């Protein structure tokens, strides 16, 4: 089975007459809140300082997003 990821992909129809270079793989985000349901007790936490930077206390909900430019520079998953 493929490794689980919050970034999904699909391959849209590509025409031989596309005016711009075809994007063969499109991606979309499925954030972690879709998978958790009602939050269970005693999930792992960040420490206070990490949590302030992450924007959440809960590791399971941490899902940083990197822009296209940042990804080119080696950021992102």
């Amino acid at each position, binding site marked *: 089975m493929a490794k689980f990821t919050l970034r999904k992909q699909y391959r849209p129809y590509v025409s031989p007459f596309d005016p711009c270079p075809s994007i063969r793989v499109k991606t979309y985000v499925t*954030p*972690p809140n879709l998978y958790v349901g*009602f939050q269970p007790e005693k999930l792992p936490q960040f420490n206070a300082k990490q949590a302030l930077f992450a924007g959440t206390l809960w590791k399971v909900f941490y899902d940083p997003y990197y822009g296209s430019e*940042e990804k080119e520079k080696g950021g992102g998953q």
Partner: protein
Amino acid sequence: MWVYEKKLQYPVKVSKCNPMLAKFLIEQYGGADGELAAALRYLNQRYTIPDKVVGLLTDIGTEEFAHLEMIATMIYKLTKDATPEQLKEAGIGEHYVNHDRALFYTDAAGNPFTATYIQAKGDPIADLYEDIAAEEKARATYQWIIDQSDDPDINDSLKFLREREIIHSQRFREAVEILKEDRDRKKIF
């Protein structure tokens, strides 16, 4: 009533003079899925929602104002020292003609804010589903702004705001579960 803390929820630093980014960020200021719409939506819906989730709407609605303040700070910093010429090049010449460098509640295309952006159906489930959708739309908007931005410091703040949308969506989903009154029953299985 509210107690105001004179600081931002998360620091806002702008490292590049790029007024074009202000044009995009204003979508989250006065746009349909922006922070103003979110704050007003939740703080208005909370009067006619079951007691169990009133506090959640109050808390999240209040936090949206803290986000609004962060967006305002970004836009202000990006435009305060820009010349009229630079503002014109950035595509906000029309805004300058009308408002100088003052902030105004519009979307990225210049449409003024309208109450039709927010809904209050009075049906708790309908309203909470609207709130979940609003959070996911705001999360997506942050993604598209990050994609357009070349400013690492602004992106840092935008990532924080995007993460908060994820948490808000999670809590609204939990509010639906609370109203379903189904949580304890499930544990029997």
